[in-house]
Structure formats: C-alpha cells, structure tokens
C-alpha cells in the first residue's frame, strides 16, 4: 500500500474461499497501518463475519451474485464496507444471540461479533439492493497508526458512499 492509497475495493465471488481471501486482505492492510496483533485479530474476524453474512444470508450462496468489499483509510480510522446482492435486512430484526432462548442456536452470532469487535458498526441499504455493512476501527490513541505516511481524510464517518 502506498502513502497515497486511501480507498481499496474488490468484488468477490460468492464462494467460501472469498471469506478467507477477504480476511487475509484486510489483515494485511490492518497490519500495514500498524494495528496491534489483538486489533488485527478483531478486524480480521469482523471482516470474516461480514463476508460470511454476505455469502450465506445476503447472497444465499448463489454463485451468480457478488460480494463487494471496500476499505477506506482516513486520518482517524479504518472503515470497512461489505455489500451483498441480497434483499437486505434490518439490524432490529436480528435475534439477540445472548438471549437465553438463543444460546444453543447454531447460527446468528456474526453480527454480534462484528458489533463487539469493531468501534462502529451499522447496516444500511446498499446500492446493489442488498445490505451494506459498514464498520470501523479507530487507530490507536496518539494518531493514525500508519507506517507509511498521510492517508488524508476523505471519509470521516461510517456513512455509506452510495445508497439505493
């Protein structure tokens, strides 16, 4: 990643291997900008869960659909967007995995993990008609964690870049 790079976007196939690919890609960026090992773990896990969500729930594992992954580096934080081509969902409709009746559920913990591990988390309607997960992690106190210069500040919050 060069000092000028502020935005990275890839389109992934709806395939289980895309989950690992997305995680590895974001981990490399997170490491490059200086996040600690623990924070990299949380970022990697969150990206993984976001892409699993798009792969399984959003795109219903249909190979004809794509998963859109984007990273933005601002002065303050790393912002991650994961967009699917499904029907979208509302956060308030997602069951609480910590509720007694859901503790033994075999699914439904991905959103919870992303919310727990990231500093900011939201789901909005994506430009593809599906859901867009937007989450961010602030750089460590004392300034941006970049090892390679100024990334500028083109995005200062987790608002979607485009909405349907």
């Amino acid at each position: 990643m060069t000092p000028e790079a502020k935005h990275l976007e890839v389109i992934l196939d709806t395939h289980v291997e895309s989950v690992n690919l997305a995680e590895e890609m974001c981990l490399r960026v997170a490491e490059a900008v200086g996040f600690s090992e623990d924070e990299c773990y949380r970022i990697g896990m969150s990206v993984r869960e976001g892409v699993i969500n798009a792969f399984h729930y959003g795109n219903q594992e249909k190979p004809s659909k794509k998963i859109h992954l984007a990273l933005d580096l601002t002065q303050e934080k790393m912002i991650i967007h994961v967009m699917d081509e499904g029907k979208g969902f509302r956060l308030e409709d997602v069951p609480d995995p910590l509720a007694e009746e859901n503790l033994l559920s075999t699914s439904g913990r991905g959103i919870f993990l992303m919310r727990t591990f990231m500093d900011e988390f939201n789901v909005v309607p994506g430009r593809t008609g599906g859901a867009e997960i937007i989450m961010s992690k602030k750089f460590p106190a004392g300034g941006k964690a970049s090892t390679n210069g100024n990334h500028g500040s083109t995005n200062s919050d987790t608002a979607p870049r485009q909405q349907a």
Partner: protein
Amino acid sequence: MPALYMTTREVGPVTILDLSGRISLGEGSALLRKTIRELLDGGQAKILLNLGDVNYIDSSGIGELVSAFTAVRNRSGELKLLNLTKKVHDLLQITKLFTVFDVYNDEPTAVRSYQ
C-alpha cells in the same frame, strides 16, 4: 491459513479429540461435524474436545461446537472442552457459551468428570 487437524484417542471411557488449527467456515467445521457424527454412530457419546492448539474459531466454528454439544446430549452423552486458548476462552465468554460448556484445564480431571 492453516486448516483444522484432528487426532482421536481413548482414555478410559472417554474419546479425546486433539484439535489444532482453526475451526471456521468450510473444512474445519465440516471435519468436526463428520467426526462427532461418526463417534455417535459408533456408540461413543463421552467426548472431550482438547482445544489447546486451536487458536481461532469464527461464528461458524462456534455454531459447530454448539451443534456437537446438542447432538451428543441428544444421545444421552456429554461433550466437554479442555485447554482453551485465551482467544477461544474470551470468545466463549462474550457469547455466554462459557456457562453452557463444561470446561477443564487439565485432562485427568476432565476424564474423571465423566464417571
């Protein structure tokens, strides 16, 4: 990223699965599911998962552990966990599953707990 590796051994009435690597979406979760199913089909329902070398579990892996736990319980058996790494321990705590699973830090105590 390393996959999940697993070996099986018997200690008294207990089958211990020594796992290492990642329990995550894909092969890791599938291997665990297949192994548990085979053990249950073979009549073995006292199962101890040694997670000492498992350094990563995602939500699919958590789901697989829960699925294994309920499958074994439905056969009147017990599935317990041994040697959690800090990451896995923390993950089970924040998901409130630490209170669901019987967790041990040493193998002899874990094995005795089945009797």
